[in-house]
């Protein structure tokens, strides 16, 4: 990098490759200006929507003809990073739509909120495309720092501030692991480039310790055992739209990177990774089983899903030789999860518009009669999370377990499938509450918020629901996009 000449690094191809991220960065700047000039909601909304739209269009065009490795080989703009990028943009857009009418008391700072939200996908894109350990770190921080602030955004609520601080302290702790790991790898091998590391046959003990620390930090971000303990507290305390963003975008970005660095692990690590995956699924599902708060239940469920998709990594290490098998399965799974979980968290956010009482399962009782569409959408998301056929969640699970079977990890697949049986128990409890239990008397007089204020959230819900169904009913189209 140092000896390379700047003109070669920053050629047109390079700028083109990262144009979606550049669009986002410019949008962030414009949004800051707009915030100074006017307080009009529509202006702010137009900038955010326009930026996300422009970035998505650029991403689609780049995806049509991926430039490959750029920035002197530190960033990979390939097919996979393009698809991940689109997924991040979708996740951000959904979270933003749900956030529009979510905050009551903190409205003065909405510009800052949107600025931070718009910054996160830049970080995610850098993480997903990183071919260099340092670039990944830049992306990681670009994602994490705004999220720390966003978690604490409801600054006069103890839980929110607590969540932000917890996430920040533990995130900093995790980042330290990452940096130390990268430093160890550098001192052992003399490089931070994944392309160069790929050529190393085996690693020394020093490098291997570095890899382990690095993995610990990535595992922290995708929240698998034993790095998942913060998840329920933070997810529960954070403002719900932010939770939606964390649960989907962060996880997907860390996962995209994990797939890029899987080769650092020896094949013998397959069993460790599989064990971590299984334990994570078990703890996530069992934890979710006893939750009374739906937001917290979804947090545990998110942990369980992270465990499931980690199986793909175990399978890739353990001998699933299907070309792109792991990537296909992971992308599909995460796509289904992003839309399902974003929709589910988003619906909770939408319900909270009427007060903070709605995330407890008792408060969802009989909702189907008062708000039939909301109940129907929430049911769809629950079924998808539970992996019922003809929803995206089913096929994602199927591909993941199928990948494990191809790698001869039958026992692991069996336990995984059994654990997902347990999972259905708590997803169904929500459906039962929605449709099959009488409304609690305390909610009898609660009015549905005005339709106008629900519009953005309804739009996001409709889009998520449609995509969850499409992923389940017409998976072929998506799989062709992923596979091409």
């Amino acid at each position, binding site marked *: 990098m140092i000896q390379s000449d700047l003109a070669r690094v920053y050629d047109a191809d390079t700028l083109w490759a990262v144009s979606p991220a550049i669009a986002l960065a410019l949008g962030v700047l414009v949004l800051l200006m707009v915030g100074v000039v006017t307080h009009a909601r529509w202006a702010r909304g137009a900038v955010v929507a326009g930026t996300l739209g422009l970035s998505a269009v650029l991403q689609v065009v780049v995806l049509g003809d991926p430039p490959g490795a750029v920035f002197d080989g530190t960033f990979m703009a390939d097919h996979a990073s393009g698809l991940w990028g689109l997924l991040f943009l979708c996740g951000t857009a959904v979270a933003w739509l749900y956030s529009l009418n979510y905050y009551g008391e903190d409205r003065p700072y909405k510009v800052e909120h949107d600025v931070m939200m718009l910054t996160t996908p830049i970080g995610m894109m850098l993480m997903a495309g990183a071919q260099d350990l340092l670039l990944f770190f830049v992306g990681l921080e670009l994602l994490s720092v705004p999220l720390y602030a966003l978690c604490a955004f409801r600054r006069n609520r103890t839980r929110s501030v607590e969540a932000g601080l917890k996430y920040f302290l533990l995130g900093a702790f995790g980042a330290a692991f990452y940096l130390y790991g990268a430093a160890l790898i550098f001192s052992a091998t003399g490089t931070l480039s994944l392309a160069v590391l790929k050529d190393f046959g085996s690693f020394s003990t020093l490098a*291997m310790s570095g890899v382990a620390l690095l993995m610990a930090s990535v595992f922290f971000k995708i929240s698998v055992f034993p790095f998942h303990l913060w998840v329920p507290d933070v997810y529960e305390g954070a403002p719900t739209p932010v939770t939606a963003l964390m649960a989907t975008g962060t996880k997907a970005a860390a996962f995209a990177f994990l797939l890029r660095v899987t080769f650092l692990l020896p094949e013998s690590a397959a069993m460790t990774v599989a064990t971590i995956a299984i334990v994570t699924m078990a703890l996530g599902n069992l934890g979710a089983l006893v939750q009374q708060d739906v937001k917290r239940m979804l947090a545990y469920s998110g942990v369980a899903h992270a465990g499931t998709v980690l199986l793909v990594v175990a399978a890739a290490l353990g001998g699933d030789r299907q070309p792109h098998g792991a990537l296909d399965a992971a992308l599909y799974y995460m796509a289904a999860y992003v839309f399902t979980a974003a929709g589910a968290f988003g619906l909770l956010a939408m319900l909270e518009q009427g007060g903070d009482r709605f995330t407890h399962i008792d408060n969802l009782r009989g909702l189907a009669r008062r708000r039939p569409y909301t109940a129907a959408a929430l049911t769809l998301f629950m079924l998808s999370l539970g992996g019922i056929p003809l929803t995206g969640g089913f096929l994602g699970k199927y591909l993941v377990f199928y990948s494990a079977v191809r790698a001869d990890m039958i026992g692991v697949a069996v336990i995984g499938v059994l654990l997902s049986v347990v999972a259905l128990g708590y997803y*169904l409890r929500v459906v039962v509450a929605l449709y099959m239990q009488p409304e609690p008397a305390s909610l009898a007089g609660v009015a549905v918020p005005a339709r106008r204020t629900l519009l953005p959230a309804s739009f996001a819900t409709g889009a998520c629901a449609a995509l969850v169904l499409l992923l389940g009913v017409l998976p072929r189209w998506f799989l062709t996009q992923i596979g091409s």
Partner: protein
Amino acid sequence: MEHHSWLWWIPFLPLVGSAVCGVLHYLTIRARRASPDAPGYAGLAGMVGVLSVGLSLVLAIRAFLLLRGLPVEERVLESTPWDWIGVGDLRIVLTIVLDPLSSTMTLVVTGVGFLIHAYSTGYMKGDKGYAKFFAFMNLFVFAMLMLVASSNLLGLFIGWEGVGLCSYLLIGFWYEKGWPAEAGQKAFVMNRIGDACFLVGSFLLVRLFGTLDLSEIGTLVPGLLGGSGEHDLELAVTALLLFGGCCGKSAQIPLFTWLPDAMAGPTPVSALIHAATMVTAGVYLVARLNPLFAASPTVLAVIATVGAVTALVGASTALVQRDIKKVLAYSTVSQLGYMFLGLGSGAFGAAIFHLVTHAFFKGLLFLGAGSVIHGMHEEQDLHKMGGLRKHMPRTYVTFVAGAAALSGLPLMSGYFSKDEILAHAFSAGGYYYLLWAVGIGGAMLTAYYTWRMVALTFFGPERFDHHHVHPHESPFSMTGPLAVLALLSVGGGLLGLAPVLGHLAHLPHLMGDWLAPVVEPGERVLAMRHGPHGEVSHSLEWILLGVGAAVALVFAYRGFVAYRDGIGADERLAERRPVLAGFLSEAWRVDASYQSFVVLPLGALARVTSAVVDQLVVDGIVNGSATVARAIGQRTRRFADGDLRSYALWIGAGAVAISFMWIWS
């Protein structure tokens, strides 16, 4: 092979019907919000619900006639394909395929389904969820048709999960009662245990055969059998896993306890889903993949044993039930056991024959019971009935016809289908003699409990409170379907007369000939594995038929006589053998043992896990960050508990642990 795109309409018509009913339900709710007594669109929804299944039946008949017109070996109709998934080596094309087996199943599902839908228009009259009911019922028919007509195991699985979901929704239909919702959940979770086995089995199938196409799998099985038998174990494990799925869906031991609880749903649901169609899905699956199951003698023996034992447990439990629907539920469990005994004996055709006759007579009995319950103002307790034959003559006559078929009285449909299964079990010889004996024992109990139920319902003193209960006959919309099903239950035997009788009457075994091309591959595999199947001689066949008839007649008579004059026999049993009575009425205490060995430990585990995660980890470690907490604000008790430190500790420990593991491996 012929291609017909209209075949898609057989499952999709009910789906459309379901959507329309759903919209009508929504409109009804809106109308009622304006004025609570508005009629809404209930009548229209009923019509749509019945018609969509009726039209589907017409198409199914058309397909059947087309099939029959084709030469025997070409009897397959295929719809246009739908390319569903394509990734790597996983390519899944969904197609509707009708061969003699699927065609039989579609006829049963749409035919019996149509009658039950028609019956429901009367039974559910006045229910405030009328349109919703038909939406769910139609959705169920759609899923069931996908299940029986899909060319691909994954397509079958869509239907498989779909019927489970509808069953769950319909069991919990009357959720105001409180317990149905819970029963629905139990059914769904138990089914999911089976489904987990099913899914894993399907993964193994792909590994073994590289395809999930059902007919391809059938043709590929013989190729794996040759040589040193290196695939034998894999084949057996795959078959057993799939059978595990069947145990869940078809309520076999050890997963049968959900079915009696499922009776909490409206009675037409019990008739359609929990007697005639959904619970037979497991039987269909084994029959469909018959070469795979035939490939392993052990697997067949397991299936036959599970079936025989379930038949006995179900029948003995039905002996002492007081709830009329519970009697029928355990009876269904038991009859499904017979079907699996047949499959396990290699009599795939006979099992499907019994499936068909069972759909007739058990559908009839459930609908009859529904008519009784309807007429008795929601009373289900046999001890509070009696003497109803005067009040409900039409229900009485048809119910007796169904009872005759269920108990296997000579020449009724159930007589032929059950005896065909038992004859096959007998001719399999060896260990199967024992299973045959168990089956005969079950048949004795069946005849006994069936006629106990008839006697307690329709004969003897009237034990209900005459001031509050005024039994009345049900309307024609309910008795009409009863009459049709009664005819089928009595005459259904003509579809498959026992060979010796058929010989006398110059009637072929219609069902056997019709299904022959489907079960033939399995029989070939059986012949490869076991040598030629023992033929039953004419004299032996006469003897077996005679034994079946004698057992049915004797025990039907005894059951009837014991309860003709009232509930004395039940009281004497409870008095003299309280332990036995309790043991039987709780279905051999299987459910209770699940409660203590599975449910409670799992719940405890979950609570402990969450306690560990939420509290122990949090509280157990020194609380030191109080200064931070004070800086933040007042109510931050959770911080003071020191959970942050412990989380960090876990992260650190985890990092160290994986470092050690990876460095040393």
